[in-house]
């Protein structure tokens, strides 16, 4: 199991939170919303492989193929 990925996502989350606060404070709410969305998408892109692996494993375990 790759533990680095967790730290990476944690870092990304912190950055997104800071970015959201900074943009929100300077009155650019729509950009703040957008950056949060982009952060979520990037984090999802990081874990999508693992999720697909998980579903494959579930399929293999219950012999659903």
């Amino acid at each position, binding site marked *: 199991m790759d533990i680095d990925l967790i730290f990476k996502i944690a870092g990304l989350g912190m950055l997104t939170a800071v970015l959201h606060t900074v943009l929100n404070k*300077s*009155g650019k709410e729509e950009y703040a919303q957008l950056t949060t969305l982009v952060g979520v998408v990037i984090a999802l892109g990081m874990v999508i492989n693992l999720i697909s692996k998980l579903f494959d494993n579930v399929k293999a375990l219950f012999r659903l193929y």
Partner: protein
Amino acid sequence: MILIKLIFSFLIFTTCTAIGYFHGQKFDSRLQSLIYLEQCIKILETEIIYGLTPLPEALTNVSLKGKSKVAYLFEEISKDLISMKRDHIFHSFQSIETELYENLHLEKEDVEVFWGLGKVLGTSDTIDQQKNFKLTLKQIEGLISEAKSEKNKNEKLYRSLGVITGVGIIILLI
């Protein structure tokens, strides 16, 4: 391998920070330019209304008395006016357009106000000129207050945005 990674992440971080910093700096530069421009126009007003100095000479005097960040432009206008034998001083004002945008970081509306002064300069009697000076100074005052609020809003934002983007890219790449 780790060393290369470290060096390049540092490089990315510095670049992003610098971009953010200089983008934020533009707002400060615009505000400063407008304030100095106002001072210079006030000096020019005094030269014309009370000193009754001829225009090229008055412009040169402004360039000597004003803050050098803006005042050198008046020297250039004066030089252009004499050397190119312009029939109207407005064409000399137009000749320094790129410098207004690039060195002083002015916006389009600031330049238009400045040019508005150029259009009427030296075309009528002192009373009318004084009215026009007053109008221009009033407009610049409004622009200064607008630039101030814009600076307060955006300068810090762009600076922190640069740093955060740099860190974000590094985290994504590592």
